[in-house]
């Protein structure tokens, strides 16, 4: 925690008018959000796991 906080002074507040490049789609943490959502939904359905991506928690059948 201490080591992590030592890096905090390196953080800068980027003014909103300098965020043009940061706003580009390929700068997003997840460049393909739709694809990731579908994959995640599919995965959680097959695993029968409770998830925010599969409404009913999945039945292991992989169905939507």
């Amino acid at each position, binding site marked *: *925690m201490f080591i*992590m906080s030592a890096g905090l002074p390196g953080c800068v507040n980027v*003014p*909103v*008018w300098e*965020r*043009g490049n940061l706003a*580009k789609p390929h700068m997003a943490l997840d460049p393909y959000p739709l694809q990731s959502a579908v994959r995640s939904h599919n995965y959680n359905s097959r695993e029968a796991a409770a998830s925010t991506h599969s409404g009913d928690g999945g039945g292991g059948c992989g169905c939507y």
Partner: protein
Amino acid sequence: MIKQHMVSLTRSALFILIAVFLASYSMAAQQMNKPSPDCAFTTLDGAPAQGLHAFQGEVVYVDFWASWCPPCVKSFSFLNQLEHEFKAQGLRIIGVNLDEKKADAQAFLDKYPVEFDIVADQTKQCAQNFAVIAMPSSYLIDRKGNVRYIHQGFRQGETEQLRLMVQQFLTEQP
């Protein structure tokens, strides 16, 4: 052990988020009901344009926008509507462009034509004076020159509130 670290990290992140939120909220609150800062604008080509205080006596809707901002696209059709409806009653809409490359702004305007005034804040001094922290950010200035309403972002459901505020300020006399 790892779980404890995770909890501690989550708490720290939450604390930072709350601090940032409160800081931004108080920055916006400082502007409310106070005379608006003056701004020296230029056209997109760089020619001098009228400053903000030149419009005293009118209700001024200052909208800070940039070409890379998706909600700005949506806000422009609403602003065009406002211009149509309320220009005759004394509403002045000023779209302040904050793009770093003017060509981007021009391409955006070619794609989404506007009917209100577009100016550029080349030094970004105006955005700093207004403490702009979101894109788009809108400031409604009454006929006396006071900032009366600040709106950050643009969502479809909020247009009615903005329209009501504009109507209310237009009925007030200086």
